[in-house]
């Protein structure tokens, strides 16, 4: 079980969290202006890298706050945690998030 550092509550067990998939996927400014392909990309298509991945978590059983994390999907190690609205922290060369 991962120990996830909630930016507000500190490290807590994974069971307290809800996973939210890829981070930084913004709701389109004007969905009606998108093609079906573009809309499908927003609705269904996500990055799925083997390696560092910027993703969302919610501390659902705690402070109920969503936050972002960069986690290496190979090791499940959390490389960084940051609040919504904050930019992704600088990471080392090997931890660059694929996009």
């Amino acid at each position, binding site marked *: *079980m991962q120990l996830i550092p909630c930016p507000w509550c500190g490290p807590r067990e*994974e069971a307290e969290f809800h996973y939210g*998939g890829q981070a930084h996927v913004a709701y389109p400014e004007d969905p009606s202006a998108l093609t079906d392909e573009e809309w499908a990309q927003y*609705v*269904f298509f996500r*990055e799925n*890298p083997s390696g560092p991945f910027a*993703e969302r978590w919610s501390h659902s059983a705690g402070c109920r706050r969503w936050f972002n994390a960069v986690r290496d999907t190979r090791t*499940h190690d959390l490389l960084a945690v940051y609040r919504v609205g904050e930019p992704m922290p600088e990471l080392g060369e090997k931890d660059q998030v*694929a996009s």
Partner: protein
Amino acid sequence: MTSSVQPPGAHLPEHPDFLWENPEPKASYDVVVVGGGGHGLATAYYLAKVHGITNVAVLEKGWLAGGNMARNTTIIRSNYLWDESSGIYEHSLKLWEGLEEDLGYPILFDQRGVLNLAHSLQDVRDSVRRVNANRLNGIDAEWVDPAGVKEICPIVNVSQDVRYPVLGATYQPRAGIAKHDYVAWGYARAAHAMGVDLIQNCEVTGMETSGGRITAVETSRGRIAAGKVALCAAGHSSVLAKMVGLRLPLASHPLQALVSELLEPVHPTVVMSNAVHVYVSQAHKGELVMGAGIDSYNGYGQRGSFHIIEQQMSAALELFPIFARAHLLRTWAGIVDVSPDASPIVGLTPVGGLYLNCGWGTGGFKATPGVGDCFAHTIAHDKPHAFNEPFTLERFTTGALVDEHGAAAVAH
């Protein structure tokens, strides 16, 4: 005198004395299959056997069938809800029924039946709906009440006093289990015998295209030119597709399973309970094989979180109190590629000569012969087989999804 003292493990068949060679990769193949799991091996087998395409390499980055093929709980069934799904899974089940003879390999296919339990009134409605759909699709399916469940599998606790009582189950008698290594090796041996090169420790690191068409793969063992490339990489599909700039609607998640010690036979069938995330059978030697729920996060680490196993155990003991003192011997995890509608993606891609077979989530093993056959057809004809035609990548754009999540678990 009867030999009542026959040791319990004496009856299991041995593997053959020869399986396959380990050739150096050639410079070029007509078809390169990426991924030496069950699907990759079956695809190569049917390419050779049905379509006469034998200049084929199966590239495996580790050891053959060492991914999800070696990690799944070997349940085989075809009782899916939608016509599209039941089509390909039933095709597969029919192939399973002749596979041992086809491959000349003892795959221990055992049609012991599968019970899918219902625990709520909505489960019951959904189950009956599926049974009726299955029957009209020519698939053997029955709805059984709790007493019927007890008759088929006497160790299931059908008491109505438990937290989520069993209200009944769907039953597919022709469903069952097989022995995964035997299946994979059967395909591998037969494919090899027809001229397919099985190349292990060969990781694909890149793909070359020219004029919108695939031409070669870069591997840890050098460049291999290819007329066609077929991806059968399950959890790693997204990573491979990305090499040609193709994005897939997939998330790779850990899926855990576990096994107990060998036990005297107690469990004659396969029991699945989606509501409480338990599926369990007793394998040929006597071990209980159980699968858990999918871990929520993306992960390529082939390990999940242990609380998932603990939750699974508490659910399992509610259903099977007699498992209390069975022992967990080994846990492991695979990487399942889950699509938004819980259905696979099998077919052509925008890149000429590149074919996609992925998104099977937890359903991959049972589909092995069926998708191997259909995917080989797709590759050979550059056109989907009727059974995989609905499972295009384009469906996520048009909205023609095949939603097999089952009825959403919402309530009034």
